[in-house]
């Protein structure tokens, strides 16, 4: 042992380090990702895969009725029991999930694309255009997304197109805000100025500097918003404005189940749990990405001033 080690060992004794948390270490050592990201990704990919192969693995036809076996409790045949028409709830949760998750994904991607483009334009254009766009964002924030969706549905009638448009109209704002902020921030960086001074083209600056430096946060927020989208899609269905019967999704199943709430709590617990777990898994992914990005920075260092 060198003198350095001996001396520093002295600190170690005085300053006992916290114990090694092995499970988080496995995640960071083996997979090189934040453990939240790992857990979220594991859950979400399982869910996504299950929903993808639902038509092949679902034990029943989602609309086959059996009045005699209605409102049955969970059993070996019906894992989540049956609903008031004797349909298999497990099957319906799977099929409902296909709709919920697909709807959330479609609107999310639209929101991300629209919002990112508008945000970037707003930041680069500046001036009146910027002011106008940001006022628009303020305006949209003042209305709950469900209410705006309601307006649109009242105008254009219910339907998947309306639903997607409604959720996109209200959903692009966080992306635009974030992108605008990021672009403005990156724009002030000296390396952008340096690239300009070097005669690099605008596209080079956008694609090599701005996008790589903004994509990470956009990616993280996309996952964080995914959960939100899933819940909003469900809310509209819950209010009877989303998915149209005889199709069903998690929100609509919850609305139906409310009438049987006390008699068959399973009917309400399972679709809700499905929304919850799916939303949680994606937000964990988003949070994981965010924490991962910040890991190197001293973001995580605690304050030296409060000992």
């Amino acid at each position, binding site marked *: 042992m060198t003198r350095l080690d001996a001396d520093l060992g002295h600190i170690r004794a005085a300053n006992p380090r916290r114990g090694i948390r092995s499970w988080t270490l496995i995640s960071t050592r083996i997979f090189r990702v934040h453990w939240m990201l790992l857990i979220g990704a594991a859950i979400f990919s399982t869910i996504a895969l299950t929903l993808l192969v639902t038509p092949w693995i679902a034990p029943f036809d989602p609309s086959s009725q059996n009045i005699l076996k209605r409102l049955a409790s969970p059993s070996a045949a019906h894992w989540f029991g049956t609903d008031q028409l004797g349909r298999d709830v497990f099957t319906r949760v799977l099929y409902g999930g296909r709709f919920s998750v697909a709807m959330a994904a479609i609107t999310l991607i639209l929101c991300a694309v629209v919002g990112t483009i508008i945000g970037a334009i707003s930041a680069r254009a500046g001036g009146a255009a910027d002011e106008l766009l940001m006022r628009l964002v303020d305006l949209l924030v003042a209305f709950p997304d469900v209410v705006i969706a309601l307006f649109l549905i009242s105008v254009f009638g219910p339907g998947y197109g309306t639903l997607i448009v409604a959720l996109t109209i209200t959903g692009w704002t966080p992306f635009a805000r974030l992108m605008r902020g990021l672009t403005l921030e990156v724009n002030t*960086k*000296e*390396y952008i*100025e*340096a*690239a*300009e*001074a*070097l*005669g*690099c*083209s605008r596209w*080079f600056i956008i694609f*090599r*500097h701005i996008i*790589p*430096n903004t994509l990470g946060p956009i990616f993280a927020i996309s996952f964080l918003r995914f959960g939100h989208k899933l819940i909003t899609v469900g809310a509209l269905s819950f209010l009877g404005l989303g998915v149209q019967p005889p199709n069903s999704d998690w929100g609509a199943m919850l609305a139906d189940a409310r009438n049987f709430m006390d008699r068959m709590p399973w009917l309400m617990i399972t679709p809700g749990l499905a929304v919850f777990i799916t939303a949680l898994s994606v937000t964990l992914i988003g949070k994981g990405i965010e924490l991962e990005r910040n890991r190197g920075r001293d973001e995580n260092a605690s304050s030296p001033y409060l000992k």
Partner: protein
Amino acid sequence: MIDTSLANHRANPCPATPMLSVDDLVKHFRIRGRLGRQDLVRSVDGVSLDVMPGEVFGIVGESGCGKSTLARAILKLTPVDDGRVLFEGTDLATLSGARLKSFRRNVQIVFQDPYAALDPRMTIEQSLMAPLSQHRIGTPAERNAAIVAMLHEVGLDETFLPRKPSECSGGQLQRVVIARALLLKPRLLICDEPTSALDASIRAQILNLLMDLKSRFGLTMIMISHDLRVVRYICDRVAVMYLGKVVELASRDVVFSNPAHPYTKALIAASMLDSEEVGGLPEVPEGETPSPIRPPSGCRFHPRCSRREALCGQLPPRLDTVGGAHWAACHFPQSGRKPEV
């Protein structure tokens, strides 16, 4: 080598046409607080100067006096409000597209903070490759060779190519930044405080490097600094700025030995250049540089000036010659010894 190049410029201090001339340049920033109210920051407020081919032109002044803004305007990195910048006779305002691009090859800048000047996500190699590929210089193989050669030129080697900026020290990064600027073989290099973020020992290394490169590449340089020692060592001519204006402009020796403007004098005194003499604290003007948002009327230095008179608060002095190539913006310039060259 350096000696000869310096000697060259000394021999012919004033060739007929300036390489760069800045003509009554004005740059005001509009700023707005959260609760509104627009303010004008008069960062550069009527600056004129000429830079001759081959010389090292120094710009000194305290923080916020507009040095960097002037540099950015010269590089056409920021639009100007008034005045012109001519590079070899061409008005920068007329440049765009391909002509702007070729101007970019002629004038380059080295920034103060090397960490900020390099994209943290790019490797050194990518950062160095960008100017060459953007200007379509050479084949990929030639570009590689040029990059490696330039790294050696600045005292680094190819082991730095795959590194990210976070894996290098400040001094090393500043060398990379210099290498990147020189890859385009510019004729004018603007150094905006290239050493102020660096340690004293590294500062000397970088300045040595810059002087080496200047002679090897035949560069004309503008050296921006608030450190009079750097300016005294490196520059041929010096402009002193105060609150967006040039207050004194002369050859280095004249400025240091016979400053005409009281601010220049104060700056030299406060910098405590002659340190071998263990001495006390110098007498310095009271107060601090006012905000460029509401600069004082008349001579901008007058509230702090020990020699002020009524006139100073009313009439802004013009930058006028006080003897040959020695210019000062002062109503009552110091009438001192004649410059001893």
